């Protein structure tokens, strides 16, 4: 067997390969040769073979068959062998292979070797890829080496200790005694690694942190020596002596001084000195300044120092060097929370950075700009940001659009400005906005009642221009469906009203349905919009035709909708106006708030607002007024009716708004469609209607009978809600002792203005006869002011109007509850 070729030869051969296939062939041949050489257990050439194997590994070819050979090399006595063996171990092995544990013994022996370089190799390998078992076994040896006087070994042992601590945090205490006099070393290498070790220990354990706080004076002294000492050639980098050590010490000072007044005070002088004396002409000086600034911002420094720090950052921003500007933007982002006003001063520079060619700088500037937006500068900033949105790369557009929405929502000076901004974003970056922005926008539009005409007009015009951006199209079709009558009637105060006929509007919506650019979701939106227009427009026949065509559509979603709408036209025409009425005003949620629980009702889209059947009963309005009458019109707030006459079958499927903000309930479809799968989110409380919601401490108020007349008995039980003791939870139980069922049972309530009331859905609206069952409903009353002796008069009106006229009296009865007081 001829001697295996040298590494250099191999490299030379491989470089002559002209194609990838040739290279692969050569390497395979060589791999085969190496494998047979390994089989022969040839000691002399093993190290050469492994070296070649490592080279091939770097090029990307599999080399795992060399793992055991590395171990054999490590066990050899020769330094050359050990060196390649350890290198191979570091490159080829990791803790996922079982083979690595065999190394432990070798490493242990080598850690006690007489030659420092062998010890160094062992420490290096352990520090790079030691697994937790190995670390546990060998931590003692490492600790011993940490106390040696040999600086070469000491610095390696320090870093190895860091690795051990990372893998096995429990062993941290073991290294504590060895750290006692680490900082009194003269050798910079040891100092450097000791500071790293101390940093790691302080970051991991608050006890260590407080223990090491006493080292602050020593660190300050070392730093001072570094700055004051003259030119020392060995540690010099571009004129500054050992900047790496300076930066490390500054970082450790930052950790030690955070939140601690005494340490911060001890550091103030040295930080000021470093900040003023460091030369900034080279990158090195800037690195030190940057670290100093970060430290000043993090510790409890005095205000003069903080101003100095922000000014340094401002100077960085104006620097020509891109790296410095990038670094300045990053650190300003970190400090904008604490020192908002100081950073505002540099706003114009930051906004200029948006126009920079460098992608990294642009991203940082964008994040920082969003952080700086406030009520005063919103108009100017938004102009810049919209311009940026127009011209930036697609990767940025999504983040920028979301940021603009958030900022606009928080600081919009006027509704019209808000809507204009949103329109602008939708038209420029419409395909990049997040999915949840569509429902948010719809909610926003609904809430700005006076802008409806203006909004729908603008959206219509935008639709005429371009139907490719789906979020825009979805919002537009929803709005047209809701406010189409305003569009056609041409009433718009804000802008020049456009003349649009009903047919034109329907043309546009139908165009969306057939266009290839529309996604299925968009098609669903436009079909629903067309349907809604049937109550607002007069050309019902055309709408009927459209709807019936899609009854045989291939898309299941569209088909289902069309079939149901068809049925609405045919069998349930009397319900149609009520069903398709205008949406009520929705209360605002947080813009990227928690996902509302949506009753999907067989729908595939997740927008809560497109629940097509949101019946809005016309009755409650009048009844609320009656309530007011009864109370003499004093400070009572009529409650938005949240319950809905429902069929008993669908009782369990009511939408429950556990979050309490959006008081919408989606009524299940009144169509004859066979039971639509009610996919309820799993975290809806089951059996809500019959058991108390919060089984915690009772409020201390005994249950009471609120009403007992004509066979109808209503009982209240009280509880206090656990998360918020200001909320009283009242559960009503209604039972009927007459002989016939009471149907269409609806319970309403009103409270004084200082209170907030929430009615959750009842279990059903039929009270069975002869006390066979009961209707339960949960009411939550919040007293935000926690007034002790409040005098709320919760007036409850309950009425049952059944077709059988069971109760001879009229529907309304007032119950006066004595005191719904909050027992403190």
């Amino acid at each position, binding site marked *: 067997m001829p001697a295996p070729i040298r590494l*250099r030869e191999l*490299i030379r051969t491989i*470089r002559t390969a002209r194609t990838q296939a040739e290279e692969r062939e050569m390497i395979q041949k060589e791999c085969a040769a190496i494998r047979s050489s390994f089989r022969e257990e040839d000691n002399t050439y093993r190290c050469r073979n492994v*070296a070649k194997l*490592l080279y091939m590994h*770097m090029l*990307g070819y*599999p080399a795992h068959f060399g793992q055991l050979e590395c171990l054999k090399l490590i066990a050899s006595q020769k*330094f*050359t062998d050990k*060196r*390649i063996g350890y*290198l191979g171990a570091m490159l080829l092995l*990791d*803790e*996922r292979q079982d083979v690595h544990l065999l190394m432990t013994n070798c490493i242990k022996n080598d850690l006690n070797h007489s*030659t420092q*370089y062998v010890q160094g190799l062992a420490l*290096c390998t352990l*520090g*790079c*890829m030691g697994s937790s078992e190995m670390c546990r076994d060998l931590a003692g040896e490492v600790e011993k080496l940490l106390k040696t006087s040999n600086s070469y070994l000491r*610095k*390696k042992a320090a*870093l*190895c200790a*860091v*690795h051990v601590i990372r893998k096995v945090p429990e062993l941290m205490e073991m290294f504590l005694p060895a750290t006692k006099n680490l900082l009194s070393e003269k050798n*910079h*290498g040891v100092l*450097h*690694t000791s500071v*790293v070790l101390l940093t790691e220990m302080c970051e991991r354990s608050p006890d260590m942190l407080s223990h090491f706080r006493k080292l602050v004076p020593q660190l300050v002294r070392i730093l001072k020596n570094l700055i004051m000492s003259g030119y020392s050639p*060995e*540690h010099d*980098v571009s004129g500054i002596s*050992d*900047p*790496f*050590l300076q*930066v490390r010490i500054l*970082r450790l000072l930052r950790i030690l001084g955070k939140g601690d007044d005494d340490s911060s005070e001890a550091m103030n002088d040295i930080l000021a000195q470093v900040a003023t004396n460091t030369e900034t002409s080279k*990158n*090195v000086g800037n*690195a030190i300044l*940057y*670290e100093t600034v970060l430290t000043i911002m993090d510790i409890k420094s005095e205000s003069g120092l903080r101003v100095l720090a922000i000014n340094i950052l401002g100077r960085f921003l104006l620097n020509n*060097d*891109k*790296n*410095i*500007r*990038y*670094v300045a933007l*990053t650190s300003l982002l970190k400090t904008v929370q604490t020192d908002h006003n100081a950073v505002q001063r540099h706003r114009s520079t930051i906004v200029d950075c948006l126009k920079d*060619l*460098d*992608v*990294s*700088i642009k991203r940082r500037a964008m994040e920082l700009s969003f952080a700086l937006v406030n009520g005063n500068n919103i108009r100017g900033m938004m102009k810049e940001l919209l311009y940026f949105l127009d011209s930036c790369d697609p990767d940025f557009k999504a983040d920028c659009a979301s940021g603009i929405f958030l900022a606009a929502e928080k600081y919009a000076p006027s509704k019209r400005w808000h809507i204009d901004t949103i329109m602008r974003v939708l038209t420029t970056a419409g395909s990049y906005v997040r999915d949840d922005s569509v429902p948010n926008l719809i909610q926003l539009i609904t809430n700005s009642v006076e802008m409806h005409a203006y909004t729908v007009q603008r959206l219509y015009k935008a639709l005429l221009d371009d139907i490719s951006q789906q979020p825009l199209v979805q919002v537009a079709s929803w709005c047209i469906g809701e406010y189409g009558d305003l569009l056609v009637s041409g009433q718009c105060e804000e802008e020049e009203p456009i003349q649009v006929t009903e047919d034109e509007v329907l043309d546009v919506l139908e165009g969306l349905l057939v266009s290839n650019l529309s996604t299925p979701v968009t098609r669903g939106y436009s079909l629903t919009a067309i349907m809604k227009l049937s109550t607002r427009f007069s050309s019902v026949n055309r709408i009927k035709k459209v709807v019936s065509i899609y009854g045989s559509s291939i898309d299941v979603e569209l088909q289902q909708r069309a079939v149901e709408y068809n049925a609405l036209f045919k069998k349930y025409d009397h319900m149609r106006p009520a069903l398709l009425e205008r949406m009520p005003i929705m209360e605002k949620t947080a813009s990227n708030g928690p996902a509302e629980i949506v009753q999907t009702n067989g729908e595939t889209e997740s927008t809560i607002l497109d629940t097509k059947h949101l019946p809005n009963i016309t009755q409650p309005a009048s009844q609320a007024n009656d309530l007011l009458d009864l109370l003499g019109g004093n400070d009572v707030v009529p409650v938005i009716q949240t319950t809905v006459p429902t069929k008993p079958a669908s009782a369990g499927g009511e939408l429950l708004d556990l979050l309490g903000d959006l008081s919408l309930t989606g009524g299940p479809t009144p169509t004859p469609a066979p039971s639509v799968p009610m996919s309820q989110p799993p975290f809806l409380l089951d059996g809500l209607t019959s058991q108390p919601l919060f089984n915690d401490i009772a409020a201390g108020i005994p249950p009471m009978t609120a009403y007992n007349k004509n066979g109808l008995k209503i009982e209240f039980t009280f509880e206090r809600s656990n998360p918020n003791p200001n909320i009283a939870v009242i559960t009503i139980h209604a039972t009927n002792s007459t002989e016939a069922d009471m149907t269409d049972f609806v319970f309403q309530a009103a409270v004084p203005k200082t209170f907030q009331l929430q009615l959750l859905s009842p279990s059903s609206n039929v009270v069975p006869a002869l006390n066979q069952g009961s209707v339960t409903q949960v009411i939550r009353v919040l007293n935000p002011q926690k007034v002790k002796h409040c005098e709320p008069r919760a007036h409850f009106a309950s009425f049952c109007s059944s077709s059988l006229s069971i109760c001879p009296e009229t529907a309304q009865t007032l119950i006066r509850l004595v005191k719904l007081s909050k027992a403190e």
Partner: protein
Amino acid sequence: MIKAILIFNNHGKPRLSKFYEHYTEDTEQQIIRETFHLVSKRDENVCNFLEGGLLIGGSENKLIYRHYATLYFVFCVDSSESELGILDLIQVFVETLDKCFENVCELDLIFHMDKVHNILAEMVMGGMVLETNMSEIITQVEAQTKMEKSEAGIAGAPARAVSAVKNMNLPEMPKNINIGDISIKVPNLPSFK
């Protein structure tokens, strides 16, 4: 912590790859390719910092790179390292290589991959900076190389011969031999008649 150190040339061929975190072999190669893609797209006059690619930790990790002639030196670090400090570290590393190899070029890195690894091992250990003093690093590396050579036996004879010649202290060969003004007296030879 430094996650990885990569050196590759302008065509993406790796010249050195050292990972301080565990990845499979395939992932390592993919990371090299992805990093090359990200870094080669950069202009000459933009900043030297990049967000890490998806494979190597995404936006939590940063790529800090420097382009020297035909080679890219890329350090992938996490947020605990100072970006400007790492730039300086790359500079120190390259200068050390320069001192060890005498005007280092790409060929040196190609043919002496193991030596580059050894130098790197003296500077960065376990993802953390060990030593930044150039002369110290070079001293250690040379001492270890000497140890290797002393073990090499007969196979090391040519290498030893070469280094012996290099270290030979030849006396300066005189370049111009200035004999000075020698007046050679030519004897008066009788003329032939």
